[in-house]
């Protein structure tokens, strides 16, 4: 398992992506899977950066783990900000027309659709969000 801790600010997104992608490269996954993982990582990290510590600053820790001979990817985000379960939010109505669509609300929905499993817990003063994706077969 590899771990990276950064200041939870959106301008750290590229650093987070590089870290995740360097781990994914070892797994030799398809472009499609890579994009799905990047989507989920971006949405979760940006959420933390925008909301967890506002108006103060804090850090986020991301860990990447490949288990089952590299078949299962597990990414865990931890922050010590305001307790917040992003999964509690209702999914947006994706059948609405452009005029009726709200701007936003899509990020978590896209995360859920891209991953096989997304879970949240608040433990020991930390928000812990876990993404799981089967990357082979």
């Amino acid at each position, binding site marked *: 398992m590899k771990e990276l801790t950064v200041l939870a600010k*959106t*301008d750290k*997104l*590229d650093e987070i992506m590089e870290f995740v992608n360097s781990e994914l490269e070892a797994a030799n996954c398809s*472009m*499609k899977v890579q*994009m799905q993982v*990047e*989507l989920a990582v*971006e*949405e979760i990290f*940006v959420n933390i950066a925008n909301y967890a510590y506002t108006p103060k600053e804090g850090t986020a820790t991301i860990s990447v783990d490949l288990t089952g001979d590299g078949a299962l990817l597990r990414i865990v985000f931890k922050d010590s900000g305001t307790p917040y379960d992003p999964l509690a939010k209702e999914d947006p109505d*994706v*059948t*609405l*027309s*452009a*005029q009726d*669509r709200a*701007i*936003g609300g*899509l*990020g978590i*929905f*896209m995360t859920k*659709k*891209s991953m096989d499993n997304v879970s949240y817990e608040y433990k020991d003063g930390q928000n812990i969000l876990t993404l799981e994706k089967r990357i082979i077969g």
Partner: protein
Amino acid sequence: MKINKSLNDGKLKLEIIGRLDTLTAPELDKELKETLTGVKELEIACNDLEYISSAGLRVLLTAQKMMNAQGEMYITGCSDDILDIFEITGFSQILTVK
């Protein structure tokens, strides 16, 4: 991300090259807000678009709403992976994808 633009007789073509994410989407948003006045036809060419996140989709939605009021907008050249994202999010119903 890089944006190439060409404006010709009320038709604006924006080529988006690279990644449309949280960090780069504001640039496209700014470009659209500055350039869309008087545009009747907007083409967003995605042949070299590698990645789009919800931040990018939000900008496309804003552009679509603006163009609904003043002309037409369509998206061209998307890869299958990008088309999948439009499909999952219902954007394939909102956008005109050619």
